[in-house]
């Protein structure tokens, strides 16, 4: 067994160890290299930037915990952008396990121990303001602060449950639910996940069906996002933005070029680009998990390329391309 053969037959657990080290060490020595946002991600950012309190969007958690490392930062970024601009958001989920991912994202953005959080005002807490018949966003906030509520120092803004957010959650056969929402959102979701009737919510008064929605951001771990195009975009022209795992991202460039989606966040890089845009434009003081993750990704990618090159050198230098069979355990 020559050296090349020995190298190619190395116990794969050594390679496992190498990749593990390559993903741990950079956390302690960050490179801090800049990430430039691509046109695909800026398409989504600009679209949301053009919206305000009179519009409404959907942020759909169409993934499960398996791909949360990629998908969750995208959804969190889109939600943050919407909360900061007081854009009403319907939160839905294509899969049952996605509903709790949505809960975790809302929880993260409203966590009072974190910088730049949003102070969550529960439905019952601002009942008196609704009773006064105040419906516009600025009026609600004004009345709320007039009641003696002040925004905590670390907080970026208020999120009024039922006006700024309606957490609708999961329903089975979600592609048909999308279709149903083209007629009426309340017919599909009579209540939010806590049981509050949708028809009583201020968000619903101006946004009764998908026809009244200005963007659906779907963060998907599989092909669920395509259902939003098929049943939302093609049925009523609903603008769609994709947040997809890197594995799927290359397949969906066709939808960007065809104009069926306004943009796409592809994998952790896409999420990091959105985080950069949020920070650069003052929506967040720091970066999120995706940006930090991309810093670590640098070394891992270099290692993988190194392994590919090394494997090929050993393969050709060892003459295995001339049909010399590799011996030993692989």
């Amino acid at each position, binding site marked *: 067994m020559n050296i090349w053969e020995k190298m190619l037959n190395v116990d794969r657990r050594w390679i496992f160890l190498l990749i593990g080290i390559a993903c741990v060490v950079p956390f302690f020595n960050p490179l801090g290299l800049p990430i430039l946002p691509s046109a695909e991600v800026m398409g989504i950012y600009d679209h949301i930037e053009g919206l305000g309190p009179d519009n409404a969007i959907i942020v759909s958690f169409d993934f499960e915990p398996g791909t949360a490392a990629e998908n969750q930062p995208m959804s969190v970024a889109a939600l943050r952008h919407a909360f900061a601009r007081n854009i009403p958001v319907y939160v839905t989920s294509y899969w*049952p396990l996605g*509903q709790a991912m949505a809960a975790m994202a809302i929880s993260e953005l409203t966590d009072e121990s974190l910088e730049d959080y949003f102070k969550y005002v529960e439905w019952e807490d601002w009942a008196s303001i609704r009773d006064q018949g105040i419906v516009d966003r600025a009026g609600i906030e004004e009345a709320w602060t007039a009641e003696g509520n002040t925004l905590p120092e670390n907080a970026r803004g208020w999120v009024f449950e039922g006006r700024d957010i309606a957490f609708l*959650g999961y329903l089975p056969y979600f592609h048909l639910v999308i279709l149903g929402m083209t007629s009426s959102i309340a017919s599909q979701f009579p209540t939010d996940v806590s049981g509050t009737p949708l028809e009583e919510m201020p968000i619903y008064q101006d946004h009764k069906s998908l026809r009244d929605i200005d963007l659906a951001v779907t963060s998907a771990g599989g092909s669920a996002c395509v259902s939003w195009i*098929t*049943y939302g975009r093609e049925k009523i022209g609903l603008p769609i933005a994709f947040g997809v795992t890197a*594995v799927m991202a290359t*397949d969906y460039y066709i939808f960007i070029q065809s104009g069926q989606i306004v943009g796409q966040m592809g*994998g952790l890089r896409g999420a990091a680009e959105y985080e950069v845009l949020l920070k650069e434009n003052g929506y967040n003081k720091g970066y999120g998990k995706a940006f930090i*993750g991309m810093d670590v990704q640098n070394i*891992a990618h270099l290692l993988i390329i190194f392994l590919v090159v090394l494997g090929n050198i050993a393969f050709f230098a060892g003459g295995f391309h001339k049909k010399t069979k590799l011996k030993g355990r692989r």
Partner: protein
Amino acid sequence: MTETIGLWVAALFTIGIYSFLYKENPLYRLAEHLVIGVSLGYNIAITYTNVIQPKLLDPISSGEQGAWLLLVPAILGLLYITRFFPGVGWLSRYPMAFLMGAGMGVGFPLSMKAQVLRQLEASLIPLYETGMAWDVVIGNVVMVLGTLAALIYFFFSKPHKGLFFGTGSKIGIWVIMIGFGATFGFTVMGRISLLIGRIQFLLGDWLHIIE
């Protein structure tokens, strides 16, 4: 306290599953089984509280107008259970037929629009316009010819010979390989991202040695 216990349980499972990289072991097997039970159990709970209760039981019990009509989907749905009784198992085809037939009918024109017509339309673009950067012009040519060539490659009703089918399919496979290369590159990024996510949990949420 619960949160701390939770973090330790989560960390134990994370490390337990990574121990599989060294050798298959009971902790991995336990995790593998638990994940199925928990996810389906969660699914049952969510389906009950999100669908059965608000969309079926509540309207019927509160006597909403026309709520009795909901008995139709409820009975249809219940027919699924007959699947477990050999004599009447065929009844479970009725709810399947209800969902599938109409679902495909609704979906057919929309899928055709989304995945065929719009894609064909998007391939018919001007390759050059004044002011277009040269890389975009080359790109457009590559994209349009690439689509055509790759379609020829997948067309198996004619032998891949001659200028059109022969050369076309050869160009097609080259374009497809570039596409697969891009997918591989992205797949690497995706897989590493998931690993980074877990390391962020272990080093950050659990051990608090990184931010």
